[in-house]
C-alpha cells in the first residue's frame, strides 16, 4: 500500500478490490468522507426511485383500463402567430416538445455542473460560483417548466392524480407522484447549489478544499440520471 490511490494497471480488478476492502483505515481509498457518504446516500435514493418506477410498471401492466399515449398527452403545439405576426397557417402539434426541451435543459445543467467541479479542483473560485449559479438557474428553469407542464395537464387535459378522462386513473397518479418526487429533488438541489455557491464565493472553503463542489455535483448528476429513466420509461414508453 505504497500509494493508496494510484490507479493500478498491473493488478486485476478482483485483486484491487480485495486489497482495498482488506486494508485498514479507509476502504474507498482517496475518497473523502463526505463523498463516500453521498455515494451511499445515492444508492439508497436509487432504491427509492426504482421502487417508484417498479410500482409504476406493475400497476401499468395490471390495469385493464386503457393507458393514454404520453406522446399525444404531452404534445405541445408550435403557435402559428406571435405578437400578431402570423407565420404559419395553423399551429403544429409536436409530441413531447416541452419534455424534450426540459431534457435538454437538465442535460445542459449537468454539463455546467461538471465544469464547475472541474473548476473547483483548479481552485478557480470565480469559475465555480459562475458555473454553479448557471446550474442552479437551469435547474430552476426546469422546475418552472415542470410547473407549466403540470398546470397544462391539470387545467387543459383535466388530469388529476385521482382522475384521468383518457383512461386509467393511475396514469395521472404516477405522473404527478414520480415527476413530483423528482421535482422535489431538483428543487432541493437548486437550494443546495445556491448555498454551496454562496459559501464558495464567501471563501468558506479557501483554507480546506473544494471537495464539496464535487459532492454537490454527484447529487446533481444523480438528479439528471433519474430524469433519464423517467424520460425513457414514462414519456417515451
Amino acid at each position, binding site marked *: *500500500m505504497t500509494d493508496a490511490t494510484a490507479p493500478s494497471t498491473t493488478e486485476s480488478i478482483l485483486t484491487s478490490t480485495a486489497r482495498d476492502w482488506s486494508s485498514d*483505515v479507509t476502504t474507498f481509498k482517496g475518497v473523502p468522507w463526505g463523498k463516500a*457518504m453521498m455515494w451511499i446516500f445515492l*444508492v439508497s435514493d436509487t*432504491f427509492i426511485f426504482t421502487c417508484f418506477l417498479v410500482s409504476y410498471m*406493475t400497476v401499468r401492466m*395490471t390495469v385493464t383500463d386503457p393507458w393514454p399515449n404520453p406522446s399525444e398527452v404531452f404534445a405541445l403545439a408550435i403557435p402559428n402567430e406571435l405578437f400578431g405576426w402570423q407565420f404559419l397557417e395553423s399551429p403544429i402539434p409536436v409530441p413531447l416538445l416541452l419534455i424534450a426541451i426540459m431534457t435538454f435543459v437538465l442535460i445542459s445543467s449537468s454539463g455546467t455542473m461538471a465544469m464547475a467541479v472541474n473548476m473547483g479542483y483548479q481552485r478557480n473560485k470565480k469559475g465555480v460560483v459562475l458555473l454553479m449559479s448557471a446550474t442552479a438557474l437551469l435547474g430552476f428553469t426546469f422546475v418552472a417548466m415542470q410547473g407549466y407542464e403540470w398546470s397544462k395537464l391539470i387545467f387543459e387535459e383535466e388530469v388529476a392524480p385521482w382522475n384521468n378522462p383518457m383512461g386509467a386513473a393511475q396514469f395521472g397518479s404516477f405522473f404527478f407522484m414520480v415527476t413530483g418526487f423528482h421535482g422535489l429533488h431538483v428543487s432541493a438541489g437548486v437550494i443546495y447549489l445556491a448555498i454551496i455557491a454562496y459559501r464558495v464565493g464567501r471563501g468558506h472553503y479557501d483554507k480546506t478544499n473544494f471537495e464539496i463542489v464535487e459532492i454537490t455535483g454527484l447529487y446533481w448528476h444523480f438528479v439528471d440520471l433519474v430524469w433519464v429513466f423517467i424520460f425513457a420509461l414514462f414519456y417515451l414508453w
Partner: protein
Amino acid sequence: MATAEIPYQETVPLHHPKTWLGKYVFSQDHKVIAVQYGITAMAVGLVALVLSWLMRIQIAFPGFLEGFGADEYLSSITMHGMIMVIYLLTAFLLGAFGNFCVPLMCGARDMVFPFVNMLSYWVYLISVLVLLVVYPLMLFTDIQATGAGWTLYPPQTITAGTPGADWGIVLMLASLAIFIVAFTMGGLNYITTILQARTRGMTLMRMPLTVWGIFIATFLGLIAFPALFVSAVMMLLDRLIGTSFFMPAIVSLGQKLEYSGGQPLLFQHLFWFFGHPEVYIVALPAFGVVSDLISVHARKNIFGYRMMVWAIVAIGILSLIVWAHHMYVAGMHPAFGFFFATTTLIIAVPTAIKVYNWTLTLWRANIKLTVPMLFALSFVLTFIMGGITGLFLGNVIIDIPLSDTYFVVAHFHMVMGVSPILAIFGGIYHWYPKLTGRMLNDTVGKIHFYFTFVGTYVIYFPMHYLGFVGVPRRYYETALGGHFPDWYPVSAHHLNIFITIAALIVGAAQMLFIYNLVHSYFKGKKASDNPWGANSLEWRTPQTPPSHGNWDERLPTVHRWAYDFGVPGHDTDHIPQDVPRKESA
C-alpha cells in the same frame, strides 16, 4: 501493512459545547446520542409492553377489560408490532448499539458527521412523538390508532371497516416516513464511519463481529427502508387524495368507493421487500453482539471468525431475495412459491453455521457465567427454537396450514422478539460499565435473567402448538359466545390463560431491570477500565467512561483481531487488539 504511509486521514472536527444543554441534550457525542436513542427506545418499548398486557388479558379473559373492544384490540396489535419492530428493536440495535459501538470499536473519535448524527436522534424522537400522539388524541377526539396490523395491508388499512382508517393510519405512515429519514441520517454515518474512519491496523477482517453485524444491518436498512418509504407515500396518497395505487374497485360496507384498477399485492411485495431485510436488520446486530459476548465471557476465541463474517454477508445478500415467503398465501403468482421456498431454505445454511459456531466456541472454553453470558447462552437456545420454526414457515407447503395462526406469532416472537431482546439485555449488562463507569447489580441481573429467559420460553414455546391446532392470530375473541370449536378447544383456552399469566409476570420482571439501570447508575460498584477482560478497542479507552473524542491525542493502533483469548505461551488469558505482536510473543 505499512500503516505510516497512509497519505490522507481525515479527522472529526469535535464540537465541544460549553452549556449543559449542549453537552447532554443537543450533544454531538456519539455516546450521548446512543444513550438518548436507548432511553427513548426503551420508553416507547414500555408502551408496547403495556399494550401486549392488554391484549393478553383480552385473549385469556375476554370482556374483563372494560372499554377494550375489537377496535382497541386491533389498534393495540398494530401499535405493539410496529413499536417493537421499528421503534424499539431497530432503534435500539442500530441507534443505541450502533452509535455506541461503531466509533469505539473501530477506533474513531466519533461518527464522521456528528451533527447529522445528532439530527438523526432528534428526527427519530419526532417520529416517536408523531406515532404516540395518537393516544392523547384518542382521549379527546374520535381519532383511533390504526388497527390494520403492523403489515398495514391495503385495502383494509384505509377502508371504513378498520379502526383508525381515517387518521390513525395517516399518523402511522407519517411517523414511519419520518423514522426512515432519521434512520438514513444515522445509517449513512455508521456505514461511512465503518468504511472510511477506522483506526490504523483495523482491517475489516479484524473488526469485532458486533461491528460487522451493525455494518451489514445498516446497509440492508439503507436499501430496504426505501421500499417502505415508497409504499408509505403511495398509501398516503391513496388515503388523502384518492389515487388508486393499491386500491381496486371496492364495495366497502355497502358503499362503492371511488377507487379502481389498483393492485393490493404490490403493497405487500414492497412492504416485504423492506420487511424481510428488516428481520435481519434486527437479527444481524444481535448475532454480532452475542458472538462477542460469548467469546469474551467464555474466554475463548470465537470459533470460525471468517465463516461468521461471511455468514453475515451471505445472510445479508440473500435476505434481499426471500421477501415473498411472507406471502405464500397472499394469492401471488403460483410459481413464486418454488423460488422463494428455495432461497429461504438456502438462507438457513449460513444461519445454522452461526449457531454451530456459537456452540463450538463453548467447547474447551473457560466459561465465566456472568450475567451477559447468561443472556448470550439463552439467546442461542431461543434462536435455535426460532430458527427451526422458521424452517417450517419458509417451506412453502408447510406455511399453507400454519400461516396466520399462532404458530407464526410464536415463531417471530422467538426469533425476532425474544432473541434480539435477550441480546440487547446481554449487551447492556456488558457495556454498561464502560458507558457509566459503574457495574450493574449482579444478583438483580440474575433474577431478571431467569425470569426473562424461562418466562419468555414458556410463553412462546407452547404457543406453536396452538398454531398446529389452528387457532388464528389477530382474533379479538376466539370462543364466540362461550362456544369452543374444534380448532379452539377448551384446553387451548386454558393454555392461553397460562400464557397470559406468564406474560404478566415476565413483563413485571422487566421493572427489575429498569430499577437496576437507575440504581446502579448512582450506587453501583465502580467499574475498572476493562472489567470483563475483553480485547476490543472500546475497553482500551484512556478514561472510563470515555471522554468526548474517546481517545488521547493518538488514536490506538490495532495489531490483531479482537479474539485473542487463551493464546498459548502468554501470561494473561487475553491480548487486547492494540497490543503489538512482538510484545505478546
